[in-house]
């Protein structure tokens, strides 16, 4: 009797609205977290750039705009980004076609090698090229001068051209990877029909193949453009010595020159606004120029495309591809490893001068060791937190669909198009005491910046996975007697687990080699791996920087191998 009464009461308690709703709680939590992580820093930049002691003023912006060197660095930023985007797109599409659709030999191996620049930190590449082609002391330059009896060095990597060259070699894989996968998913019948209808091979490529992969090309080109506009590592390593600045490096220079004072940070904020305007303008122009719908003709499943015979061009093109690989992958990698072994910077790279002392020094120094553990800590923490947070937001956006889900979506993807330098300044302004919380000089401020920076990665992968989970699967669990929480735990989460794991690695890997934001946020005890390499080089300890760099490369390659192994045998949904 009592039991049945109790039961009645519970049934009546299930009246809508009066009991705690999980959906509502998740929605509110998502909004709050995004507010703290994303909105606050962005707001702080805008506020500090436009308001002086609580009053609206354009003085700061005008002052920064009137400085000639700021305008020059803005122009440099645009020039470099546009060049890298155009050249990178051409190069990416060309090699994607070569490896995706022609009968060039050794495809599998070459594809794997072409993906290496994507995981390799660009600033290490810049370091390597600086060692080789530095106008004064580059190894290769010296060799050229000796062999050809030149009066001066033939190449100077410390120039706009040099910056474009190095960025290009790290950013063309964005287009390459997108386009290769589009080629693989394209139905070969589409091209065969055109051939049957009487079109020549060249016409088919121009009129059928390229238009079909245009969405993939423009998506990749957009990635290159945004990344290059915001890029810090390469221009800072190659440009500083010659006084060549881009906006991100200018911001860094302004802040480090001011010793981290508030005035310096405010100037940085104003410059950030300029950078954001450039990025926004680029996004708008890109949308106008390359607006093209996506085609459903490109299917999700892999097909076997018809390969085009290169005939006589096969071997020359193969040689060209191999040379490209040697130039952009092997040479810089080898350089970093070799310089890591050399006794003192500047000695010729011959076995007599080799030593392992740099490595022992690197591992003996507590600073280096700390930087590795710092990086591991922030990267793993950011990966795990973002993985859950991104999944939470993806769930709210895809399944709960509350009012304002568009806002959630925009907020979580927004930081991705905000340059890391800008984000770092926002984080400094927001979390160094002005709002009551002071995290400056601690590892937590770096973690918060990483969260904002990488949230969209995990949000995107989880979103895609959640779209594959049909709502009836969760509903079936509900009718089988599982509460909402249980149906999430038993059905939805297990089904998207593989995507969550790959979301983690998508964050962990780039976070391990991050410099752009951490270089502005690190404190005496919170150097990250990237910052440590950067400062070793800055302090002139080139061989040690190279040794630590090679340690970083080995770590990245090992992690990447683990990731591929994990993601390969994931269970299909």
């Amino acid at each position, binding site marked *: 009797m009592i039991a049945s009464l109790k039961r009645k009461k519970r049934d009546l308690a299930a009246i809508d609205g009066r009991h705690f709703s999980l959906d509502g709680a998740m929605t509110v939590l998502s909004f709050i977290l995004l507010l703290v992580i994303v909105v606050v820093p962005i707001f702080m930049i805008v506020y500090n750039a436009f308001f002086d002691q609580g009053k609206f003023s354009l003085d700061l912006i005008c002052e920064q705009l009137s400085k000639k060197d700021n305008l020059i660095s803005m122009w440099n930023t645009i020039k470099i980004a546009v060049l890298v985007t155009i050249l990178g797109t051409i190069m990416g599409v060309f090699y994607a076609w070569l490896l995706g659709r022609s009968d060039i030999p050794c495809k599998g191996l070459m594809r794997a090698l072409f993906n290496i620049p994507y995981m390799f930190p660009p600033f290490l590449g810049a370091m390597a090229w600086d060692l080789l082609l530095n106008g004064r002391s580059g190894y290769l330059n010296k060799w050229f001068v000796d062999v050809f009896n030149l009066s001066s060095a033939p190449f100077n990597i410390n120039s706009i051209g040099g910056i474009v060259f190095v960025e290009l070699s790290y950013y063309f894989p964005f287009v390459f990877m997108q386009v290769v996968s589009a080629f693989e998913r394209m139905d070969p019948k589409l091209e065969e029909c055109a051939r049957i209808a009487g079109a020549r091979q060249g016409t088919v490529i121009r009129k059928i193949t390229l238009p079909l992969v245009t969405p993939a090309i423009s998506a990749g080109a957009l990635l290159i453009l945004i990344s290059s506009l915001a890029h810090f590592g390469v221009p800072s390593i190659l440009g500083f010595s010659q006084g060549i600045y881009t906006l991100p490096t200018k911001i860094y220079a302004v802040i480090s020159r001011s010793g981290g004072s508030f005035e310096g940070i405010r100037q940085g904020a104003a410059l950030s606004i300029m950078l954001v305007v450039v990025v926004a303008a680029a996004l708008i122009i890109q949308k106008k120029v390359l607006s093209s719908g996506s085609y459903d003709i490109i299917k999700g499943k892999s097909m076997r495309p018809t390969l085009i015979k290169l005939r006589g061009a096969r071997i020359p093109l193969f040689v060209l591809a191999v040379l490209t690989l040697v130039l952009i992958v092997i040479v810089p990698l080898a350089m970093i490893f070799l310089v890591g072994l050399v006794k003192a910077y500047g000695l010729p790279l011959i076995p007599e001068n080799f030593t392992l002392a740099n490595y022992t020094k690197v591992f003996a120094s507590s600073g280096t060791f700390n930087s590795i553990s710092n990086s591991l800590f922030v990267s793993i923490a950011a990966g795990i937190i973002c993985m859950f947070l991104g999944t939470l937001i993806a769930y709210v956006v895809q399944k709960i669909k509350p009012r304002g889900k568009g806002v959630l979506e925009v907020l979580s993807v927004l930081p991705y198009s905000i340059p890391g330098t800008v984000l770092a300044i926002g984080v400094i302004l927001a979390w160094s005491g002005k709002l009551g919380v002071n995290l400056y000089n601690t590892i937590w401020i770096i973690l918060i910046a990483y969260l904002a920076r990488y949230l969209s990665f995990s949000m995107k992968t989880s979103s895609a996975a959640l779209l594959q989970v*049909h709502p009836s699967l969760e*509903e079936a669990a509900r*009718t*089988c*007697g599982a509460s909402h929480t*249980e149906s999430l735990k038993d059905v939805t989460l297990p089904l998207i687990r593989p995507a969550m794991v790959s979301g983690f690695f998508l964050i962990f890997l780039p976070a391990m080699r991050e410099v752009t934001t951490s270089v502005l946020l690190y404190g005496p005890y919170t150097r990250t791996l990237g910052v440590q390499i950067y400062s070793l080089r800055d302090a002139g300890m080139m061989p040690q920087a190279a040794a630590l760099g090679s340690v970083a490369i080995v770590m990245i390659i090992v992690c990447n191998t683990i990731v591929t192994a994990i993601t390969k045998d994931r269970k299909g*949904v």
Partner: protein
Amino acid sequence: MASVKFDNISFRYGDNYILKNFSLTVEESQILCLVGPSGCGKTTLVRCLLGLSKPETGSIYVGETCVFSAEKHINIPAERRKIGIVFQDYAVWPHMTVKENVCYPMKKRHMAKADIEKRAMHALAQVNMTEYANHLPSQLSGGQQQRVAIARALVSSDGLIVMDEPITNLDAKLREQMLLEIREIQRNIGTTILYITHDQQSALQLCDKMAIMEQNGSLCQLGNDEDIILRPANRFTFEFIGVSNFIPMLFENGQCYLDFEGKKQIWTDTLPDMDKTKKMEVGVRPNDIVFDDDSPIRGKVHRSVFLGSEYDYFIDINGKELRVQQNTLDAVCLGVAKEGSEVGIKFLNPHYYEAKEA
């Protein structure tokens, strides 16, 4: 075993009413087929019953339990309604084996382990899936996944199972076999089944009772299969349930005529009461039209198609085309009407309906 009572249910998206004051009762231990065109609100009704959607008005009873009442503010959450469901897309969890799928509802109801094992194997035996107990759903065919979904529904409820278009994705032969099996299982355990479909053919094979829903979400007829086929309540049911011919009627000088594209043919059947000022039509099923050389209604055989169990004719009367079906035995005995030949035809079992607004 439980009956289901929908009382005065309304549901809408914005201003668009999917269901308006809908009432329907499913009696205990029966199979009721709810048939209606796509988009008429069948699935919405099921979702309201399961507790996945919340109606605006009305109440729903499963047996004696009120699972929903807008008035009394009762809305038992889906997980406590104890209704078995087979979704159209099966919704078999891809990350669990067949047995784990079937055990899940019992685990959630905290049954004893030994019981769970026993009932799961029994349910799997009922759907002939015992040997696949440890397979993953991705290793099963569509029909086999279907059976897993049915087994899961069987163990999740003693009294009531809802099937929402469960066999639409199967091929014709498998469909028939599944229908027989569903019927068999229901006979053995006596569960009440609410079967949702847009396909009247499978509904006829399966049901004790049929409920026809109209496009606007209202119930237009509830009855056993014979009722529905022989005495359709209105034009919608008549048209929806099978192939139909409609011939406009004319009333002149107290006489009734059939109008074949301008050619008038006198019609002498006794008419039921009807409003003769309105446009009326005679509705006839193809198999209610027979050949009769003495009939004054004459037409030309335009096309004749042999369908195995019957002949399908297209008969042209002054430009108006009628579908006529003759079963093969009759056709063989009486002779098959040749394409191009002239035939007389007679209408049996005519229905009279108001003409549709053009």
